[in-house]
Structure formats: C-alpha cells, structure tokens
C-alpha cells in the first residue's frame, strides 16, 4: 500500500508539473468532438432555395408556405426568370430552384398533371439526394390532399386512404444524426486518449530508464500499475465530463439515462482501455512507437469495427467475431443506450459484462507481462 501511494503521489506531481500534456488529454478530445461533430453530422438543413412563381395564385403560395415552414428549406430569393435561377445556382448562392409553372392552380383544380420543376445543384450528392427526397415527400402530400379534396367534392367520402406510412422516430425524434454520433464519438475519443496516455506514461519511464530504478525495488507489478493508472482514471473522467458538456451545448445531446449508470459504464470502460494501454507499453520501447501503436490499436478497430460507422450485423460473420474484442463496441453501445434511450442496467448488462471481461483480459495480460526480470 505504501509503495502504491508513493507511485500515485509521484504520478500526480509529474502530471501537475506538465500542464501541457494534461491540457492535451482533456482538450484534444473536446476539440475533436466539436470538429467531427460538425463535419460528420449527416443532417441536411437550411437548404437554400430560390422560387420562381409564374402562377401567383393562393394555391402556389400555399405550396411555398408548406415548403418553408420546416427548417429544411430557407427561401433565399424570389425570382422572375429561369435565367436568374440558373445564375444563382451557378454561383452557388442557392442549392435548388423551384419553378411553379403558370396554370398550376388551374390544372390542380381540373385534376390534370402538373409539372413542378426543381433544379438541384448536385455537386454535393448527399445534400442533393436529401433535397430531392424532401421534394418527393412534399409532392406526395400535395397529391394526397388534392385527391382527397376531389373525392369529397364529388360527394364520395373516401373510407380508405390507402397505406399511409407514418414513421414514428423514437429516441432521437428529430432524426438528428449529431445526437446519434456524439455518444459514439465520445466513446472513440475517450478510448484514444486513455490508451495513448497510459501507454506513454509507462514507456516514458522505460525510455528514461527510471523504470529500471523502480524494478530493482521490492515493489510488486500490480502496485506499480495501479499507482500509474489511477491518476489517468481521474483525468479521463474529467475528459468525459468535458465532452458530455460540449455534446449538450453544441449538439443539444442530453443524457436521458442515469448518471450513476453512465459513471459505472465509464469506469468499466476505463478499466479495459487503460489495461490495453499498459499492455501496449509492455511491447514497445520508445514513446514514439508506443504512440503510434496506441493510436492504431485504439482508433482503427474502433472506427471500423465498433459499429460506430458500419453496423456490426452487416459484417461478415468472421469479422463480427473480431468485434467482440473491441472495447468501444461495448462502450459506444452502452452509452448510446444510456444517453439516447434512458437504458437501464438490465438493458445494457451484456455490454457491461463485455467491458469487464475485456478489462480482466487486458489487465491480466499486462500484469503478467510486467515481469521484473527481463
């Protein structure tokens, strides 16, 4: 115990004397979260639209109203000629031009087909597809309303309206991809900083040969490892709080579930991630090498195999097997559950168990490899 406290105290002193590294540990994840949060956000909102209304009737205006009521479209310009619209598109001032032809209201009333023209700038294919999707939905709505009105007008009360799909989006009602992404990002970033920080802190001692001075003492490997890890557990908890606060202020991600469960999940995760950091430090000699291995081993599988971007159930079975060894797989799923769905212990215990098992595995391997005699 005395020896464990000696390590702990020394570690805190060194961390305090190196505010730059400490700052990096806490602020780099925060910075990356803000950057990636915005860059990866799949939502398309506030698409800039110009409208060419050749009809100028109550019907054409009602079409525009329903278009600009939602946050997806912003009216940038009302134009009077197609050439003007082409100019706006060319200069990138608008992403789409909606042209309502003369006779729109009349044709609708007669039940004739109307061609609404939408010119879409497809240089950003993702935004273009989404824009077209929104217009599709809009025209469907208009058609349904017109048919319903026509039938009613003809004295028929339509008992059947056909199949109307009304998706109810739970847990993330605004379908905000930021809300889905942020918990995943938090998991990845925390993984990165935890693994890098611990592996560096141990390899640094090997590089400066202070490790040798510790190893000739009667200290036990587990006293050494625990004393070196505990400070990083605390730092990572601070980092976690930072990114959660940022998630709230920047992306409106609120934590629906229990803070206690979130804390427990994070602790279990850190147990596993820090153990992996120690393991990496036992197989590397220099800080540079440890850094590279730590980044590769923590980020690459985490991004590809944790279900962060590619859903695990779509992977080949063999690869799915490998994902069981990926720490963020469990952590991301668990915190997504807690943050978005108010998941309870019962819902996420398999993830917690996964973290516990991986944690035991990495820490046993790491302590086993930290033999005092080379």
């Amino acid at each position, binding site marked *: 115990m*005395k*020896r464990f*406290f*000696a*390590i702990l*105290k*020394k570690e805190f*002193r*060194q961390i305090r*004397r*190196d505010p730059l590294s400490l700052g990096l540990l806490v602020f780099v994840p925060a910075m990356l979260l803000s950057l990636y949060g915005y860059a990866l956000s799949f939502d398309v909102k506030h698409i800039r639209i110009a409208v060419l209304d050749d009809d100028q009737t109550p019907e054409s205006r009602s079409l525009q109203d329903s278009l600009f009521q939602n946050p997806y479209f912003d009216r940038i310009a009302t134009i009077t000629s197609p050439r003007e619209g082409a100019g706006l598109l060319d200069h990138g001032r608008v992403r789409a031009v909606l042209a309502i032809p003369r006779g729109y209201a009349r044709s609708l009333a007669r039940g004739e087909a109307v061609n609404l023209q939408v010119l879409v700038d497809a240089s950003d294919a993702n935004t273009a597809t989404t824009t077209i999707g929104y217009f599709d939905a809009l025209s469907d709505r208009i058609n349904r309303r017109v048919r319903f009105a026509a039938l009613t007008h003809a004295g028929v009360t339509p008992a059947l309206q056909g199949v109307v799909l009304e998706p109810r989006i739970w847990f993330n009602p605004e379908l905000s991809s930021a809300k889905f992404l942020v918990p995943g990002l938090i998991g990845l970033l925390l993984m990165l900083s935890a693994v890098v920080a611990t592996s560096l802190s141990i390899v640094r001692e090997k590089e*400066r*040969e*202070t490790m*040798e*001075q*510790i*190893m*000739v*003492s*009667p*200290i036990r490997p587990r006293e050494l490892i625990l004393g070196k890890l505990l400070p990083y557990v605390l730092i990572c908890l601070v980092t976690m709080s930072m990114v959660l606060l940022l998630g709230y202020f920047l992306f409106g991600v609120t934590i629906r579930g229990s803070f206690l469960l979130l804390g427990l999940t994070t602790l279990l995760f850190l147990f596993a991630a820090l153990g992996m950091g120690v393991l990496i430090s036992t197989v590397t000699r220099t800080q540079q090498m440890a850094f590279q291995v730590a980044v590769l081993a923590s980020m690459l599988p985490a991004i590809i195999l944790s279900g962060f971007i590619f859903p695990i159930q779509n992977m080949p079975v063999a690869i799915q097997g490998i994902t069981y060894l990926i720490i963020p797989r469990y952590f991301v799923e668990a915190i997504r559950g807690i943050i978005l769905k108010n998941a309870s212990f019962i819902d996420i215990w398999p993830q917690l168990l996964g973290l516990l098992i991986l944690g035991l595995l990495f820490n046993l391997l790491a302590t086993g490899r930290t033999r*005092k*005699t*080379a």
Partner: protein
Amino acid sequence: MSRDPSEPVIETRDLSKVFGRFTAVDRVSFSIRRGEIFGFLGPNGAGKSTTIRMLCGLLSSSSGTAQVNGHDINREPELIREAIGYMSQKFSLYRDLTVAENIAFFGGIYGLQGARLRDRTATVMTLAGLTGQENHLTGTLSGALQQRLALGCAILHEPPILFLDEPTSGVDPVSRREFWDLIRGLSARGITILVTTHFMDEAEFCDRLGFINAGRLIALDTPARIKTTTGSATLEAAFIKLAT
C-alpha cells in the same frame, strides 16, 4: 543469515549471459566479502553492466549461478531486492521532480515512512551535500550533485549491498574524488560495494579488482598484486598486457 565477515556476500560461478548468438558475459566467477569495495574494470561493451543487471535481478542469467546476500538470483530475486541499492549507468531519477520529491518517492517504493523516512532523508541530504536545495528541480542540479542524489536515493533503505554502475561518468575530477570519499565512507560502515568504472585512476581506490574484457574475467586481485604479477607500473599497462 550469515554474519561471518569472511563469508562472501556476492558470489558468482560461471555466470553467463547470451543475447541471441552473442555472449555478453562469459563464465564469470568471483566472490566479494562483506565491506569490500570490488571494482569491475573494463572497456565499453565488456559486459560490466550486464553482470550487474543479472545480480540485481533486472536480467535473467543464461547459465551459471550467483548468490547475493545468500540468495540465489534466479530463485529468490525478491529477497535480494530488499538488500541491495542500485545506481544505474544512466542517470535515472526524475528530473521533473524536486530533490525532496525524488527522495520521498524512492523512500516510498522501499516502504519507508514516518520517522524513519524523515531520519533517512536528513542523513541522505547531508551525505549528498544537498541540504538547503530540497525544493530545487533535480534536472537543474549540476551533474555532480545529481550523481550524489542518485547515490543517496540508492542507500535510503540502508541496503547492506550497493551496486554502482559507472557512477562517476561525466563528472569533473574534483567531484569524482569527493564521490569516491563517499563510497569509501559507506564501505567503512560495512556496506559491500560492487562498482564499475573505466577510469584506471579510480581503480586504485578499490580493495579488489576484476578486469573484464569481451565478457571474460581476465584478472581478479588487489590493485597492487595485479601490477606486480604483470610487472606493470600502472593498472592501465597491466590491463593492456592482460587483454592482449
């Protein structure tokens, strides 16, 4: 435990270390009595550090046996660790900690605390000539003071055996002289010391010497007798005769 002064405190028999196909230490046998200053002399790469690291339990041996303080290096390394102090060839205290913090740390990992830690800290500070510089960052001390502090940290827990690997490399001659006074003082108190060096003048301060070259022990005797048996005026000349 043996308290008989004639009984060896450190004893090796055909101790060897092979790295891959390279033999760094080749069947080295010697024994060191209590309170002796035993000097390990040899050029760079001769195998001095490797031998010390095996005796400290930092490196496993390839063959042969060795006992330190009566314990076998392979079977009871933990018991040996309690009994030895080690100062490695490279300065290995924390430069980003103060003098006092380094002492507290090394005292801590040897389990010292309370009155004993305070007592030993004061003794070591005086011995290292660092009194009044407790709060200086270790990295800002002169080379000579850093070396004294490293020695101080190695003897905090009052080990009966001390391994010093090139303790005076990179230190000016005057400081080297003072450092050797410290070493002799420790020896006078019954501490057994194994010290390596490649300075021939320092070798004269040792009670006995082991000349090591290319992993082999090529001479083992007192400085005076090594000179007379080889008919050399200096240890340096003796070494050259023996090595060629």
